[in-house]
């Protein structure tokens, strides 16, 4: 597949032949590639750095059915049934409960096998901690965060430890926001070993904790403030490549459970996922061209061709099918201009408000959410993007993830749900097409 040409001064295009091309390297793109690999579909993935490095690490299915709902959803599967009734155009409304369960199971089991253990999807949402000390409903959490969910549920005697110089995470803030309902919670601050001055970053701390000597040193400092706490919470810095091992080692050194709370971006759980995928996919035979935006897609009668380039020169990928998982504004899947919102790669029609004035309500925190978040591209039940005429633009073109219209993943707490559901169905349709 990878017929690399010699490196010459005359720039020859590197060319890849494959069955499926995935454009985008956010959660939807990685999920699509995962499902494709598991089905033995030859796959190439390209697309610049997605927003995956900004994630908390939680995989949300559905936290709110309607934006205005006061209470979060406890049983997301029940919530999905309501969603199907009230929002039939929502991308997840096109996917059966069985398929959604299967998608979450397959994805979490894949990443667990690859070294970042996640709990399997259950029947109910967990209540998980945010960096601000607020709570959010989510379906799957990394094993390194599970003890926090449990400690919160039973209001255990717990100390939250933060680090001098680490911005974007304050143990005092977490405690202040939770103290009323969690009286046995307290905050402590320690100096991170060898990072005693200046600004420090979770990424750097996490990598340092991959080294046993640094774990020893940190454990000593935490031990000094742990008091009678049964469980310890820290910002998400427990290792980058071997988080479960780092957590287990810290538990052993401290003699009690320790858990992570997500931090503000750039956050370790997201970087963990990205680096894991970037490492594992090529080992499993996927052609991965990370960090590069696709410039052009040309559809032929029997196949299609992607064009892009990296530092070294031009690259083309010929495939039988393509999944567009380019995300929203941040990732460049959608662009907003003075006269409206566009899908820049293929020029697909974007469902949007009649006027720019309707994009936002006046208040940023408006409980109704903002209409701009529901803009996006239209698809059919096979997740094929639709043209102006309401028909699929091309039988070989599929779409997945947040680029899809009629979902507000922010208020709905359904980002991973939309990504996994649409990627799952799109790959299923690709498999059918390739047959």
């Amino acid at each position, binding site marked *: 597949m990878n017929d690399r040409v010699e490196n010459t001064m005359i720039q020859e295009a590197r060319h890849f032949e494959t069955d499926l091309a995935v454009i985008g390297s956010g959660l939807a793109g990685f999920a699509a590639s995962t499902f494709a690999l598991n089905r033995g579909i030859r796959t190439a993935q390209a697309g610049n750095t997605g927003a995956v490095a900004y994630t908390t690490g939680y995989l949300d299915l559905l936290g709110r059915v309607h934006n205005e709902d006061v209470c979060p959803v406890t049983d997301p599967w029940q919530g999905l049934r309501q969603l199907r009734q009230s929002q039939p155009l929502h991308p997840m409304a096109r996917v059966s409960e069985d398929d959604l369960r299967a998608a979450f199971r397959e994805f979490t089991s894949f990443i667990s096998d690859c070294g970042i253990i996640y709990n399997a999807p259950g029947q109910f949402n967990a209540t998980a901690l945010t960096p601000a000390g607020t709570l959010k409903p989510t379906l799957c959490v990394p094993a390194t965060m599970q003890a926090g969910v449990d400690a919160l549920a039973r209001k255990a005697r717990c100390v939250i430890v933060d680090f001098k110089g680490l911005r974007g995470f304050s143990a005092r803030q977490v405690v202040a926001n939770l103290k009323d309902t969690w009286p046995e919670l307290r905050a402590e601050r320690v100096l991170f070993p060898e990072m005693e001055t200046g600004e420090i970053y979770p*990424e*750097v701390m996490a990598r340092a904790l991959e080294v046993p000597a640094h774990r020893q040193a940190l454990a000593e400092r935490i031990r000094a403030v742990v008091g009678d706490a049964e469980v310890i919470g820290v910002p998400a810095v427990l290792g980058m490549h071997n988080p479960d091992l780092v957590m287990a080692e810290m538990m052993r050194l401290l003699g009690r459970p320790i858990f992570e709370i997500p931090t503000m971006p750039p956050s370790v759980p997201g970087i963990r996922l990205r680096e894991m995928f970037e*490492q594992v996919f090529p080992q499993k035979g996927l052609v991965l061209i990370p960090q590069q935006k696709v410039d052009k897609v040309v559809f032929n009668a029997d196949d299609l061709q992607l064009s892009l380039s990296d530092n070294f020169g031009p690259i083309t990928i010929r495939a039988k099918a393509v999944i567009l998982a380019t995300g929203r504004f941040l990732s460049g899947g959608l662009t907003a201009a003075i006269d409206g919102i566009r899908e820049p790669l293929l020029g697909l029609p974007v469902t949007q408000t009649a006027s720019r004035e309707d994009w936002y309500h006046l208040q940023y925190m408006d409980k109704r959410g903002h209409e701009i978040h529901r803009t996006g591209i239209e698809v059919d039940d096979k997740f094929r993007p639709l043209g102006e005429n309401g028909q699929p633009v091309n039988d070989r073109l599929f779409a997945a993830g947040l680029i899809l219209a009629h979902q507000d993943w922010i208020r709905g707490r359904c980002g991973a749900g939309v990504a996994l559901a649409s990627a799952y169905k799109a790959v299923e349709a690709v498999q059918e097409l390739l047959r």
Partner: protein
Amino acid sequence: MNQKENPMSEVTIPTINFKARAMELLPEGASFEACLTCGLCSSGCPASGLENMDPRKFIRMAMLGMDKELSTTPWVWLCTQCKRCQHVCPMNIDISQLVFLARGNWPEEKKPAGIVRSCQLARATDSTSAMGLPPQDFVFVVEDVLAEVQETQPAFKDMVAPMDRAGAYFFVNQNSREPMSEPDEMVPLWKIFHLVGADWTYSSKGWAAENFCMFSGDEAAWYEVVKKRVDAVNALGCKVWLNTECGHSYYTMWNGIQRFGLEANFQLENLVTCYARWIREGKLPVNANWNSTGIKFTVQDPCQIIRKAYGDSLAEDMRFVVRSLVGDENFIDMQPNRSANYCCGGGGGFLQAGMTEHRRAYGKRKFDQIQATGATYVLTPCHNCHSQMEDIGHHYGGNYQVVHFWTLICLSLGILGENERTYLGPDLASLGL
């Protein structure tokens, strides 16, 4: 950098309008204003915090018009221009080109003297050697070392090290460090060429690998050195300029040829690619049988040839070679790796710049990465990586050796001579002798 020690400190650094220059440098449609200030760049940069600066701060200060501060911050000499910030940036913002701009803007007298001197020396002779080794001395050293090997190692009595041989397939460059200070280190590579029957030559002109003119931000000098090398290859009519185990030599040549629009009638290739090809073709029958005690190895991806040039394809070749040499089970990858790997802190002229304390602080992350693997040997096809990793190993009390690929290839083949073992630890110092 301590400017008080600089006798020319009355010379002032001109102020650049960074925002305006940044806008000129950007490709169409790109924008520094796209920066979300998310901090992935700073979070992933080993130079963050040095001199109270980091990549995010740099870009924000440029956008805020803090030109005087940016024009004079010594941080531009602590950033190795490794481009990891761009690699992890969702907006693909290239901060290193602003650093290059800032470096070039410093008056020669204020730039780190070691980098300037290395560039001057490269321009001083036809060798283009940053250590100033003139052509006739290079020719002498090569002939002298070759004669000794032919005499003392009977298996290599017919080995050659051709000089200025027109029409040879490979034009092989040479890092000056070997002919200058450790000439025996040239021999393992010659043996490899001998074994695979490579059609190769050295050149007395333009033979050197290193090019610190790029790191000094002196574009005209960078051009001059690359031009001399391109002319030398063209003159001999070689098909391939084969880059030795040296990172920035490749990048300065490859990028320079394109940047300056030079006519290069040859291809560029990296030794690692050749090693991999020769192993696959069976011409280099290496194996890991020698590693019976399970010594663990890791590999350092040099920024200049992986992230900044070839990308992951060369990184894969490199791993194929290492695995073949030491055994699958004895290879442990550093994390992160390939294009996402950290710069060791030896690049960008850092080793030559004399800012030792900063360089070692930068290198701490590399040291931790190596420690996390538990490996006792690090392989890398880059001389700057090599020196830096050795230095931080000694400084921070590491228990690992840094070795060239050619050393291990010859070790595996049982042809590594007694004087060619400078970098092996005591556990391997006499293996196979």
